[in-house]
């Protein structure tokens, strides 16, 4: 009886694990089989237009790149700065607890709430309207905890002797941070950035009411700058809208492209965490 119970439970454990595995394989096969036939150079380099009879996602690709770059430009310095403050300047106490608590809270807030906040704060109060910049500001609040936490973890692994040694030789704190701590923490910072990119690529609820859904390419050189304050839908937004309009071919094409991107991000995270493992091992 006891043996039977054990076997049943063990069987369930294996079943659960294989369920996760087959779920992933099923999703990948389904999306790629349905999506790859629609991906072509044409699909990637043109904009959907009824006049010219083209179907493409070039505009959304460009928007996605804008969104990723702008969000990182805003969030990465702030996130790293926050981690440096928590780890190098602040003394444990109420302030640190407050900052760490709010950072944790920020990572638990669902993206639709970020979307509402971004719409009224960046869109209305700051007057940015539906624009890529509004979306980027909103998303940078969302990915801030990722960057802060990963940088913090990396800074914690830098040995204390590095700091005391450099300070003892007369270096200022900022000099130590700039030349020793941040370079040593680089793999951790990169992990945070890659995770953030993955999050931005997949985000939709926070962007629907902040960045809008424009999908055109800028026509002139000035247009490329002006694009930041124009509405622009990322790939994920276009995927959602195509699904609502029952344009399943485009939807699966985009889904396959997105999955490829997410896959690359995962590979990068894996490589980086290997590297991080090596560096910390090397320093004992």
């Amino acid at each position, binding site marked *: 009886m*006891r043996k039977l119970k*054990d076997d049943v*439970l063990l069987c369930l*454990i*294996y*079943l*659960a*694990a294989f*369920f*996760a*595995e087959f*779920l*992933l*394989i099923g999703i990948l096969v*389904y*999306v790629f089989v349905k999506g790859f036939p629609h991906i072509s150079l044409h699909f990637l380099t043109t904009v959907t237009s009824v006049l010219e009879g083209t179907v493409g996602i070039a505009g959304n690709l460009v928007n996605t790149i804008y969104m990723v770059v702008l969000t990182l430009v805003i969030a990465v310095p*702030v*996130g790293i*700065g*926050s981690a*440096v*403050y928590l780890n190098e*300047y*602040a003394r444990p106490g109420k302030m640190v607890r*407050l*900052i760490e608590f*709010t*950072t944790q*809270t*920020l990572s*638990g*807030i*669902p993206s*639709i*709430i970020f979307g*509402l*906040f971004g*719409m*009224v704060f960046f869109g209305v109060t700051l007057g940015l309207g539906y624009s890529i910049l509004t979306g980027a500001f909103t998303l940078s609040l969302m990915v*801030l905890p990722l960057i*802060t936490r990963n940088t913090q973890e990396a800074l914690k692994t830098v040995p204390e002797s590095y700091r005391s040694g450099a300070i003892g030789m007369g270096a*200022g*704190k*900022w000099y130590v941070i700039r030349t020793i701590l941040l370079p040593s923490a680089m793999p951790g910072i990169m992990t945070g950035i890659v995770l953030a990119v993955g999050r931005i*690529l*997949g985000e*939709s*609820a926070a962007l*629907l009411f902040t960045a809008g859904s424009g999908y055109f390419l800028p026509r002139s050189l000035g247009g490329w700058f002006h694009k930041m304050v124009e509405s622009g839908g990322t790939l*994920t937004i276009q*995927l*959602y809208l195509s*699904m*609502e309009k029952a344009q399943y071919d485009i*939807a699966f094409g985009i889904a396959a492209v*997105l*999955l490829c991107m*997410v896959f690359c991000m*995962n590979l990068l995270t*894996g490589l980086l965490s290997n590297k991080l493992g090596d560096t910390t091992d090397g320093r004992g």
Partner: protein
Amino acid sequence: MVRYRTDTRTRTVEKAARIIFSLCAFTAVAAVFSITIYMIANGVPAVLQAGWKEILFSSVWQPAAQEPSFGILYVILTSVVGTFLAVLLGVPIGLFTAVFLAEAAPGWLAAVIRPAVELLAGIPSVIYGVLGMMILNPFMYRLEQRIFADSWTHQFTGGANLLSAVIVLAVMILPTVISISEAALRAVPPELKASSLALGASPVETIFQVTIPAARSGILAAVVLGVGRAVGEAMAISLVSGNAVNLPLPFCSVRFLTTAIVSEMGYAGGLHRQVLFTIGLVLFVFIMMINGILSSILKGEKRQ
């Protein structure tokens, strides 16, 4: 003289660096603070105008009617019931997978399944919605046709119902539940397991009667995080749940707190729009409660 000047310069730079770093650190505080203020400031006016009983405890949602009614009781209930069912379905699978990864798996098999879980966590939520819509909904529709073949009162939904949403949510919380509970199971001291085995318990008994109870606060944290993720999910379930305001019954088309915002914020105006912000506020209150529970669990864990 020269030396003196560089000294002041370094001192200014040091001071500036300190100030800039502390400003960065306070961004998170300022963000959470202003999100809270904005959610309250935008969510409360509708409650004052229409009355909190009319909004929170009325089940009639007719924002565009001649005499509009903004009852969100069913919407709140749907979120609560949907999340509860998704956790009920997702947590056992997630916990068992975590047990597999932490305790039972041979090395090579864990090396295949762990990356799969990580990749599942990275798949955008809209794609889960797409798959739910293309695979789950037709299946549910067939089920619906069979179950309600003789029913005169059932409104057919084409498969976009609460059950589809629950299944999609359960799948979406799996990675969170798996990775947090695996970490919790791994943190159990090996002596505990060794003594259990030495007393004659089988490996499986040890897992279920020693390791899992010892890791319970970490597993609880995983469940709470899963609840948070399920409550806040919007896009995936907005594609599969049908989007009509109904009692949360398995084969009814339903609307969640999140999908209510997604589906109507685009065109709502006036009081209707303000009520959508009230829905956002309700969701925000839920999330803050979940965060509070989570941090008290984590604190308790640290004290142990």
